[in-house]
């Protein structure tokens, strides 16, 4: 699956999301549940604001010195006998990985969860050369067997499905005959997947964090699937976004704790898998061959711009879980595998405004995302920056809006114009006014009054009342 999902326009996608009551129930429930757990987990840690500043500092330091750490990481991996490949584009990454697959004559690949491989559309690129690709993260597995349903959440990709829907998918695609009990469903998936782990030629993983100092990389899971993906197949390929580095294990510890607390409200996940290069003589398991593919795909262009802080992201999705817009429209409405506030900031940067120009406006700038971000990305400010770029640099704003804002600029900047405009407003709005309210407004007001009443402008403005009162006072 590439970054872009579906071909419907924004409004169609949102309409579909809003009308999907199953999805909305699941999303609202998950947001409330995970939100409460997150709050508990960060309060339990104590001094959360200081931790956030520390997390931000680590990520900013890495971004400021990214060239240094990338070099250190690559050298350390090479020294341990691993291969490192820098891919500027999705095509370069996929070509390299296909090359490894072909060389190994691999027929089956098992994968642990990875957003960057979704971003570069790796699965279909491998399927094109006749290689079977099996997702082993339960959420990704459900989506894959459901005819490649796109992920709707960066941590919980199948969040939009409830357990009954999952049962139906299993029944239809896997001949499953049991109940919708999550334990039974998970057991079934485990049984199916166990065979795939044992017969796979190559394991592909994403990367939560790469440790530059040791040439290691860490995977955070609750299912243990990454352990099997990295220990059974003889060849391992790890794909990472180029910014996902920490200097040493000291910073890894901090960020893993912040990641799991923010993502699901856990102190620690069930598994933190740390691997360093291919297996060595004394190791009992692990791959014989190791490849690290570092993907740029537009990231280096973000460095040094006003959007650089978006690269601090550790993909915890706390912003997604706190977003009141995501709550009602769901992940697919964003038209990108990256949804929610982080998706609304990142997707236009990686994929361009043609496909994603509406996303920065799909926010009330309420700041809930910024408030929960463990590494202090000012997400709502970045959404606002996008709007400014769209209006002032890209010139993509609708003409009617531009005129309106021009008029606003003139009116608001001139006390005289403002005074007369606001004085005339009640008579201008008179034809639309009944009982001091406007139920069917003209022009841009229509979108407001389609949903709610608009108050009629006061016949006596506050300023008139104030002036009359002052006059009265001076008389008396």
């Amino acid at each position: 699956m590439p970054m872009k999902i579906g071909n419907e326009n924004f409004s169609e996608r949102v309409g579909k999301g809003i009308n999907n009551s199953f999805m909305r129930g699941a999303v609202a429930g998950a947001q409330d549940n995970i939100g409460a757990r997150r709050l508990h987990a960060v309060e339990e840690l104590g001094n959360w604001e200081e931790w956030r500043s520390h997390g931000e500092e680590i990520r900013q330091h890495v971004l400021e010195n990214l060239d240094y750490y990338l070099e250190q990481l690559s050298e350390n991996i090479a020294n341990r006998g691993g291969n490192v490949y820098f891919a500027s584009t999705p095509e370069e990454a996929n070509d390299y990985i296909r090359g490894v697959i072909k060389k190994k004559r691999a027929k089956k690949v098992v994968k642990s969860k990875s957003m960057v491989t979704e971003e570069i559309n790796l699965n279909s690129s491998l399927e094109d050369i006749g290689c079977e690709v099996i997702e082993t993260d339960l959420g990704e597995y459900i989506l894959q067997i459901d005819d490649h349903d796109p992920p709707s959440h960066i941590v919980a990709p199948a969040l939009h499905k409830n357990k009954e829907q999952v049962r139906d998918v299993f029944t239809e695609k896997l001949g499953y005959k049991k109940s919708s009990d999550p334990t039974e469903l998970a057991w079934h998936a485990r049984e199916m997947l166990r065979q795939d782990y044992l017969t796979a030629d190559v394991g592909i993983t994403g990367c939560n964090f790469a440790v530059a100092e040791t040439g290691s990389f860490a995977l955070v899971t609750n299912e243990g699937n990454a352990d099997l993906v990295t220990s059974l197949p003889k060849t391992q390929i790890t794909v990472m976004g180029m910014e996902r580095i920490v200097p040493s294990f000291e910073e890894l510890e901090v960020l893993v704790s912040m990641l799991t607390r923010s993502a699901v409200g856990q102190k620690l996940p069930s598994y933190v898998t740390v691997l360093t290069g291919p297996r060595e003589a004394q190791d009992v398991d692990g791959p014989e061959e190791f490849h690290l593919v570092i993907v740029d795909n537009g990231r280096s262009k973000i460095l040094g711009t006003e959007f650089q802080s978006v690269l601090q992201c550790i993909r915890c999705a706390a912003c997604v879980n706190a977003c009141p817009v995501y709550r009602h429209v769901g992940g697919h409405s964003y038209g990108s595998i990256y949804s929610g506030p982080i998706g609304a900031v990142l997707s236009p940067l990686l994929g361009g405004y043609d496909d994603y120009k509406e996303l920065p406006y799909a926010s009330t700038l309420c700041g809930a995302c910024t408030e929960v971000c463990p590494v202090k990305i000012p997400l709502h400010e970045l959404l606002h920056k996008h709007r400014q770029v769209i209006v002032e640099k890209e010139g993509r704003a609708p003409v009617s809006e531009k005129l309106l804002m021009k008029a606003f600029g003139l009116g608001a900047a001139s006390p005289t114009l403002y005074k007369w405009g606001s004085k005339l407003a009640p008579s201008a709005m008179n034809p639309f006014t009944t009982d001091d309210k406007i139920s069917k407004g003209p022009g841009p007001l229509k979108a407001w009054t389609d949903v709610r009443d608009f108050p009629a402008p006061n016949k006596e403005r506050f300023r008139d009342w104030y002036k009359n009162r002052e006059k009265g006072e001076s008389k008396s």
Partner: protein
Amino acid sequence: MKVTLFATCLVDMFQSNVGKATVELLERLGCEIDFPESQVCCGQPAYNSGYVKESKEAMKKMIQTFEHAEYIVCPSGSCAFMFHEYQHVFKGDPVWEPKAKKLADKTYELTQFIVDVLKVEDVGAQLEGKATYHTSCHMTRLLGVKKAPMTLLSNVKGLEFTELPGKEQCCGFGGTFSVKMSQISEQMVDEKVHHVEETDAEYLIGADAGCLMNIGGRINRQGKPIKVMHIAEVLNSRTFSFQ
């Protein structure tokens, strides 16, 4: 104490009763009110929509209008925050950045001013009934005023208070968001109204004219028997004493 009132354009044009209540309340608390007539809109609608250049003219006008004020008080968390935001908009501008910084330093949201500056926690208001309070996003998250309105409301005699479920969730106003993304805004305001109903409140109180216009507009459209009140009106209520 001399207080310069930044009434906001919404209050000036659509909710003059909020402005009147603010004046009466502050006067009762011993303040002398000044309302500079040359005040316009703070520029937020254009600014938040990405029209930074257009909004800067309004900002400059506002900075000039309030330049000589000692304390600026505003009955809206979002607009008060906008005054605090100016210094970032003019960052690097040798003339306007320092002026904007001065403006921010003396700008307070109404309840913040009463509690933090006047050091008053009980304004002597009385209003009988069940109420709930909508915590506006800009006021709580961006301006950082969380406790002051609750402190003042807890001392209003006769008011029975219930916390609003999902109070941290935005009501779906978001300025131009409410018309640009009306489809989504509708869902958000509906959930908010639903939560208000769950509390069984007769009064929905808020400290931001924008949010109240949104939630109130939806409540009116649906014909729900809930009265929407700005916190200035509540704090200016003297129901019992007049009976």
